[in-house]
């Protein structure tokens, strides 16, 4: 009973708000006769976008692929990098400033240069996605690995654990909640990265769909693409939340009555 009430409150109320907002939008466009290329009505967005059919699916798949590859690359690079930083003082002194430097370079500005360097293929947009999403991952994983309470480290030492075992059995599990908060930031940034990459260098993908349709003042399609991107971002985020919830139940915060 209590559970149902909670579900209604947490899903129902936002849904109703969204629905009301949609109606308000539709009506305002109709009543004030706002031109379509400025602000299309929700119904118009729906019609013009769905009419693309398989083409649309193709764009979505392409963007998802970029996000997936760029993000996976970021994860694969940041994990060993974070471990190196966490275990070696010298490496942390050497790498940290570099990391911050790469972070302060605007990735959007890098995209055109990357095309020249890597050619007009899928690589530049994957690299942009990677560059945008890997920084929060390195930072959060490193933070998790080094903030293990000293009691746990002492416990590992008292049972003669090797450094590898200490990493696998103490530091990494301890870092799981930190890693996941990094992943949550990184996955949403990966969506941004993929779109930026597609703006600059792509023949497909939702980013490309936005630029190409705006070139012909097909605003409804651009709006449709943006909404799909938002949905993608939310779904990816929620997927991460669910994975954390079910795979690592011990990392859940202790439930409190509200």
């Amino acid at each position, binding site marked *: 009973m209590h559970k149902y009430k909670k579900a209604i409150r947490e899903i129902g109320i936002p849904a109703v708000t969204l629905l009301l907002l949609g109606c308000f939008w539709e009506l305002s466009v109709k009543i004030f006769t706002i031109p379509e290329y400025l602000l299309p009505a929700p119904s118009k967005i729906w019609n013009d976008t769905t009419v693309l059919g398989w083409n649309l699916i193709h764009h979505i798949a392409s963007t998802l692929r970029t996000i997936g590859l760029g993000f996976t690359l970021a994860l694969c690079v940041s994990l060993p990098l974070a471990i190196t930083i966490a275990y070696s003082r010298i490496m942390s002194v050497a790498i940290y400033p570099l990391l911050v430097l790469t972070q302060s370079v605007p990735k959007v500005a890098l995209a055109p240069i990357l095309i020249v360097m890597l050619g007009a293929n899928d690589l530049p947009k994957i690299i942009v996605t990677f560059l945008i999403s890997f920084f929060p991952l390195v930072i959060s994983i490193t933070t998790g690995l080094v903030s293990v309470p000293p009691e746990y480290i*002492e*416990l590992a*030492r*008292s*049972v*003669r654990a*090797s450094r590898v075992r200490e990493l696998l059995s103490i530091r990494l599990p301890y870092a799981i909640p930190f890693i996941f908060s990094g992943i949550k930031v990184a996955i949403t940034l990966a969506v941004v990265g993929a779109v930026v990459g597609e703006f600059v260098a792509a023949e497909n993908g939702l980013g490309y769909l936005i630029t190409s349709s705006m070139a012909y003042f097909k605003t409804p399609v651009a709006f449709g693409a943006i909404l799909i991107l938002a949905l993608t971002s939310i779904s990816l985020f929620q997927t991460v939340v669910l994975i954390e919830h079910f795979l690592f139940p*011990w990392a859940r915060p202790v439930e409190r009555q509200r």
Partner: protein
Amino acid sequence: MIEVSDLSQVFVAEDGGKVTALTDVSLDIADNEIVTIVGPSGCGKSTLLRLISGLIKPSGGSVVIDGETVKEPRADMGIVFQAPTLLPWATILDNVLFPLKMMGRLDAKATERAKSLLTMVGLGDFMQHRPRQLSGGMQQRAAICRALVHQPKLILMDEPFGALDALTREQMSIELLRIWNADKKTILFVTHSIPEAVLLGDRVVVMSPRPGRIAEIVTVPLSRPRDFESEEDPEFRRCCNRIRNLIYNPNLTAGARHA
């Protein structure tokens, strides 16, 4: 056999100042003996235990166990820390198996032993639970199982019952005695509680602070096996009073070091 000779420990604080945590501690502990350590806060009890365990290196003196100078934690040693320090992501059973896993000695027989240990301390139904689902006392019992699982000859316990309520605490001391009776080991037990020290120990090492050193070693002439009844014994009272005097009136008892 543990031989602690002229052990001293000086810590260098962050501001560069030096803290003498321990000076000239000498102590021999026989196999299968229970030695308890009491003393006011900050007198170096934990430091002494950590030195004997090999977790830290002494500034002076040495710890020799079975003829071997201690330089790092030994495989035949188990430690129970003041806090249970169970890994929150592992089940109780996996937590108990942790030392074996780290030493690469995990096998079916060891798992059976872990299970029977847990059953013995009344946690048979909680093996697959996570630590946070257990009360503090239950967690500490699991931590004791973890210290026993690799069948160490020596167990070091640093105020293992310190965080428990008085009732659980008494119960745990009796339980510890029962475990020791069933399978004798050398136990070094730090506590803040004088009755607990006397109830458990063959000898009670009374320490005094600034700098940390041994004030006196009180031999407890109570017969074993001991239980709550032992606390009625006049010898029990005498030992407790002696220790209390050593701690609260150090000047009155000074010079009576070898009494």
